[in-house]
């Protein structure tokens, strides 16, 4: 049996600095109302786990980058970062 390498990309997508985060704003507001006064700021973002088969880390890296730019993140307003685990 051939063991096909598996890679797991963990991707975080958040709004760029200065871009309004309406969700974060509303959630922050709700937390204040609930009495969590210690909270000084909230950022809402997306988290994706992408499982890949039959690719090495070197192969996976540019592919994930491409997926992020093409599909996952809207680079006009969002930035992304990811890690690769095998």
């Amino acid at each position, binding site marked *: 049996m051939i063991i096909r390498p598996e890679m797991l990309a963990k991707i975080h997508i958040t*709004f*760029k600095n*200065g*871009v*309004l*985060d*309406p969700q974060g*704003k*509303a959630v922050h*507001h709700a937390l204040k109302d609930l009495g969590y006064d210690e909270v000084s700021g909230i950022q809402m973002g997306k988290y994706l786990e992408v499982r890949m088969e039959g690719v090495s880390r070197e192969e996976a890296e540019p592919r994930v980058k491409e997926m992020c730019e093409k599909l996952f993140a*809207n680079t*006009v*307003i969002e930035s992304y970062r990811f890690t690769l685990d095998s």
Partner: protein
Amino acid sequence: MKPVTPTITPDMVRQHGMTLEEFRRIQDLLGRAPNVTELGIFSVMWSEHCSYKSSRYYLKKLPTEGPRVLQGPGENAGVVDIGDGMAVVFKIESHNHPSFIEPRQGAATGVGGILRDIFTMGARPIALMNSLRFGAADHPRTRFLVNGVVDGISNYGNCTGVPTVGGEIYFDPCYNGNILVNVFCLGLVPSDKIFLGNASGVGNPVIYFGSKTGRDGIHGASMASSEFDESSEEKRPTVQVGDPFAEKLLIEACLELMNEDWVVGIQDMGAAGLTCSTFEMAGRGGTGIDLELSRVPKREEGMTPYDILLSESQERMLVVVHKGMEEEALALFHKWDLDAAIVGEVTDKPVVRIFENGNEVVNLPVELVVDGALDLKRPTKKPGYLQKVDHVNLADVPDLARGDETLKKLLASPNIANKHWVYEQYDHMVRLNTLGLPGSDAAVLRVKGTKKALALSVDCNSRYCYLDPFHGAQIAVAECVRNIVCSGGGPIGLTNCLNFGNPEKPEIMWQFEQAVSGMGEACKFFNIPVVSGNVSLYNETIGEAIYPTPTVAVVGLLEDRTYHTTQWFKEEGDLVGLIGLTMEELGGSEYLSVMCERVEGKPPYLDLPLARTINNLCLSLIKDGLAVSAHDCSEGGLGVALAESCISHPHAPTGAVLDVESTIRNDACLFGESQSRILVSFSAESRTAVEEKAKAVGVPFKVIGKVGGDSLVVNVNGEEFINEEVSHLKKLWMGALESYVR
């Protein structure tokens, strides 16, 4: 003035999208050089987007007055009286450039902007429509853009609780590099409670409310005033994110505020943000305003006066209230969880002075900023391409022996296919007014508390406008009116969104001038005032302009909502009649484009007096309860209109058998797009009454067949030309759009 102000270099002037002549004009009239913040203010206020400097001269050709008009162009939106103490407030606006860069947010903030224009005037927004244009359906970016734009409109409109009741969506390669997103909004207001955007009453406080100001969208207005090129990427951080939830709160807070007698004047912060609303409100009030920037609610640290003044953060308003009412107003805003602060005061001298912690950073005469941009009477020149395309030679287009395949191909083409994939993503029912849901010629909304209803339609065939902008624009008006008439209403007002290429090119200016003239003539002819509008120029990418696209939206009134009529056939056994003349006209047709990939010829001839007589006939057939369905023939001609009348019924499609007599080519007979034709259906008993009515007004009219069966059968001069099961046609027509865009 702050001494540290850097001197303005020619480079800085250019970066602000201004010419050196304009800068010199500012210096001359101001008697000094502006500082950088002031330069920023001039650059947005004198931009094409805000100043209409290329278009203003021509727009004067549009008729803007009428007995029902309560407010014409010049305010945030136009207002037309509908009787019963009520008025409608409406406008259409473009968000083309932002939507190309970031379709979801661009379209969403477009909806937000037009909503604010409406409730700013005291009106409850009750309907949205959108006119969308994308590149070729198979262009690699089209899918992404369509999905983003529709999602953005859906999200924002739905969340604010304003139904999106209609619209249009077209695909054409001319929009590959420049999509169009035009959004229309209509609101309802008691006719004696209309609010305007003026600052009067010296000493009255100026209150900022809504969301906080961030660094977003700085220079959106000047972006909308230049062409796209590779460096548009650089302009990207200017994209704003919309917060429909904040907008919903803003709507409710504003309407509640306007129930009180506190408001002097109110205006939203749209393009050019705080700057524009401050200067325009002072301009309309003949006053000045003193503004203190440190009081402006801010989202970010370290914002400069330049940032604060030019930010296009969304969901913000400026209001002047009567002195002494500020605390009440602030309390009301806080009730709705909105940020709010007193940021300034109305002054008597017509000058806007802006301070940061007491230091004056701007001091500019209102008139110079608001009205100082020179009207450019830009040169015009008939474009050379017209010589190549303005005739069509049918010699090498063989006529059709049968029409089945063509009909199916047309029904499945993205421009003709059913648009439910789009409008089912929009809440089109909320607020319980939508009597006529999307899917018929016009949307129809009841006016609660009255017998009346409103009919809305938005239209433009830009292929026609490319081939002949004058008549193309006339046809857009005529078709919109016809859609209203088919739904049981008469037109009472019009708004337009003029989308064109780069006005610095004489050929584009020629298209613009022609289209505005044509539109103006048609409006005068039909007696429809143009009460608001918007101009979007520079829709070009790397020198490629879009087809001229003067989109029009017409608002119609049904004196009685029971006049509401839909386009689909109702009963087996009903007769089908065609009002109007079919001529051999294939120029600019969807047929030539889909079947032969040709965009050429003259658009169909529009006989305005005939159009009016036909409209009147159709309306009287509806009002007398004779016509039970009415559908206008537009793209795809008689063939497509017949098919739609069979298959657009929300539940069950129904067949029909038609016998058409013709002396022209078969393809022109079924798929040509001759104007002013309406398909009506009526019971067999009504036949004589209908025929007599048509005869009395001398309008071409023929009974061409009968509703019934499972198939659409069309015989031409006794020979079968089309015979297709309607369930099959319906499937093709319903599923096509999704197959392109999903």
